[in-house]
């Protein structure tokens, strides 16, 4: 390095391991196997994109890994934490300490500014530091929009706030459900760039999307169908988010 210091590479984290994970919704004729014996390993620090048509089970997979839903069967370990058979309270603690969520609809509190939306999570979970919040918002390119309310921000800016919010607790694993679904191409690319940047800091990133064009930024692309993993491909050279187009 020019300044003579050694480059510090963050340790990869956020590994995931699923063995025979099942999840069923409904009963009788309405019974739906959302996950049907899924085996999957995600390496720490890996960026994985999950593709698949509606109802293929990709959101269920993401929710399961995030501790929002519990599997009906199988084994599930995320960031060295076994989630199978955990009590709801333990899952709350797991989500607080280990994962961050980014949703398609940003779910910001409309009465709080961008800064406050992020600070609220720090305050409410007791994780992270308020002093870090401005830096996080700078990282996502909102240095001059921190004190704006959601109504004063564009969709892309709101999504960037939600990414900052997800990063505020310094999670091992970032889970993004259609993060670009509500955005135009240019804004979507900015968001992808932020997720890629979060991954470069050593975090695992699992992204669920309909959009196959996004797959090129991943280390690995998983395609799901009818609750099963249909295919798994590794990108030898993940593309830069700026190069993606759809």
């Amino acid at each position, binding site marked *: 390095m020019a300044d003579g210091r050694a480059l510090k590479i963050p340790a990869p984290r956020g590994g995931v391991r699923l063995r025979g994970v099942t999840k069923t919704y409904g009963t009788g004729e309405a019974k739906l196997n959302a996950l049907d014996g899924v085996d999957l390993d995600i390496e720490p620090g890996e960026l994985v994109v999950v593709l698949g048509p509606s109802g293929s089970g990709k959101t269920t997979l993401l929710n399961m890994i995030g501790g929002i839903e519990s599997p009906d069967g199988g084994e599930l370990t995320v960031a060295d934490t076994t989630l199978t058979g955990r009590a709801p309270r333990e899952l709350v603690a797991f989500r607080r300490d280990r994962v961050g969520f980014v949703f398609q609809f940003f779910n910001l509190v409309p*009465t*709080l500014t961008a800064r*406050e939306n992020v600070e609220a*999570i720090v305050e409410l*979970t007791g994780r992270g530091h308020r002093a870090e919040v401005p830096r996080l918002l700078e990282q996502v390119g909102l240095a001059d929009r921190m004190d704006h309310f959601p109504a004063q921000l564009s969709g892309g800016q709101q999504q960037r706030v939600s990414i900052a919010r997800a990063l505020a607790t310094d999670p091992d694993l970032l889970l993004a459900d*259609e993060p670009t679904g509500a955005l135009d191409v240019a804004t979507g690319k900015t968001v992808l760039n932020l997720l890629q940047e979060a991954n470069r800091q050593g975090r695992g990133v699992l992204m669920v999307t309909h959009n196959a064009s996004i797959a090129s930024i991943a280390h690995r692309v998983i395609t799901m169908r009818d609750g099963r993993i249909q295919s798994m491909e590794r990108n030898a050279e993940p593309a830069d988010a700026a190069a993606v187009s759809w």
Partner: protein
Amino acid sequence: MHRILLTKTRRDLRRRLPQFAAIAVTVMVGVVLFISSYEAYQNLSASYDRTYARLRFADVTATGGNPRQVAAAARHTSGVSAVSSRTQGDLPLRIGGDKLLGRVVGLPAGAQPSVDRVAVTSGHYLDPGDPTGVLVESHAAKTFKLSPGNRLRAFDGSAWHTVTVRGVVDSAEYLWPARSRQDSLDDPHSFAVIFAPETTARSLAGPSAASQTLVRFTDDYRDSATTKRATAELRAAGAVDVTPRSEQASVATLKEDLTGFQQLGLTFPLLFLAAAAVAAYVLITRLVLSERKVIATFLAAGAPRRLVVQHYLSHGTVAGATGAVVGLVLGTLSTDAVTRAYTSALKVPDTVIEHRWPVAVIGLVFGLLVGLVGGIAPALAASREAPAEAMRGDGGTLEPPGPWSRTVARARRIPVVARLALRELTRSRRRTLATMTGTVLSLVLVLASVGMITSMRSLVNVQYGTVQQEDATITADTHASGLASSLRKVPGVARVEPVTTVPVTVSAHGHSYATSLTGYRQGTVMHGFRTPSGGTTSLPAQGVLAGKAIASRLGVRVGDMVTVNSPGGEGRQARLAGLLDEPIGTSVYATDTTARALTGAGADSYQLRFDHAVSEHARDDARATISNMVGVVAYTDAKALRSQFDKYLGLFWLFAGVMLVLGAILALTVIYVTMTVNVAERTGELATLRAAGVPLRRIAGILATENLTATLLAVPVGLVAGAAAAWEALDSFSSDMFHIQLTLGWGTLLSAVAAVLAASLLSQIPAIRMVRGLDIARVVRERAQ
């Protein structure tokens, strides 16, 4: 309406059953209160009227003048159906060991009079061959446990005479046993009425005997015009005082009571129905907002707007109508019980129980109105949805921050959670206003009802602490000597003063008012003279002081001359030297010298005060000693009514407790609905917080802070509105008989606030359950689609 929309309405109601049920229950409580209290009020009125008709109660009672001339004038007045004359006088009675003030009323022996009959409930009517046989009014009979065959003694001004009870009777004049408009709230042990053969009554009444002419109208003429005409005729014929039925002491007291019942029957239900309408408004608005896209789709497909309005109105009207129908049934059932309980407690001889279909219809209409009023705004808003705008999605629902949000955003030292709570207040003003309205309505209900009790208590405290400062009044045989010094020697007695009390009629400008004149020695310590401005005054050397109601009754001002007529005396002129503010009655006061000059009467009684340290037991001993003294003809315990009131206090506080609970229920309904709507509207946010690992208790804290802040903001408004409502309610009772000042102690205010805060906190429970039960995965999944 279309079958499919009805099905949707049914399913909508089922999906939000607890909230719509809360609205229906509130409507039900309102309708039950309305039906049971308003019908009971009408039944009570009808019960009184039936007794009045059965006992041929006088429409007008004239006192004084030549009875023959007055009766002749009455008979010549058009619309008069019956006239009778009698003697009435106040006299001391001795019943068992009690010496008390009583009243003897003359009746024709052998046959009932044509006006003011009595209903014999035990024993038999007066016999011409039994001049010492008397009838006892039923309240006195119950108080003193008198029955036919018992004896009592009456003092005719010079000696005690024994009379025998032949029967117990109900009298229309004494359904409420009030001695006069000045003594409408007497201790039952201090007053008794006996009915005696006319000659016996005249003999026993002695110097207090007054001739009365009783006039009854035909049913067609029972109106104010006939009353006015008869009054004028009777006055012209020489009657000193003419009292229409509405001003008769018992009727007027019961009328005050009925007025209270009527108010209760209208005001309290309206509070509940208003709360239900607010809750319906919040809930249906939420429904419309959540169905914007569906509505837009319907409208885009060409559905008429009228249909949309009808559909959303149907939610409120179904909930309101359901509550109203259940309320109607329960209210109708409870009407019987309420009416019977009331007539039984007041010992009204006749009980009329009727169910009036207009009241039922009004109850049902109230219920429907709740739904219509609560649903009309959101239903119209739904019909005005712009399809394209509504289908655009959630992004369009964000509104720019207002000044309040921007101000709070700058308060960076406040924790974000607190800032969030503060800003949520303006996020949904509809919700915040609904919570505040619920709080205000609840406080109005509690303060208006509990305020009546605390004010009544204050009235008794003022009357028997500040105004009447004597502990007892001893009516004396005017022939007895040395009684004052004997009284002073009784252990425990601290002060004794002679007092003159004379029934008088005060008149001016063609108006008259029957009351009593009490003469005290100058500088008396037995009576406090409160002025309307809140200060105190002393007796004037000349002239009289009078209760302030007399000014409006006679059209006089301080400094004017009034005429004071005493029984058997000439009218004398006196200057009205000042007005007084006394809670009970409208009396006239003067120095003993002035009283003697005006009426010719000297001291006829003594008032005394005990040492402060004297125990209740010692007071009872003193009472027994004094009652047995020669020359003492009646002993009136001034504190007895206070004790009586204190005895009933437990019951009053029970009523207050019930009203507190009802107030809390009212607040709970509105706040519960707004809270659940709050959670429903913020599902996405709350699910996101839960997904981020925020513990449930922190979310509960946020919701509680928001909720309590809105509630607390409404508390000052509620307290002012509640106090105003209580004041208004009490003001309607103000007359020459009572003047009740609103007194709301800190305890009442704090209890009312505690009740609404408790309701606010209780409403957290279902809201927190909703958050706990939030299916984060489903919310996230649905939002992602």
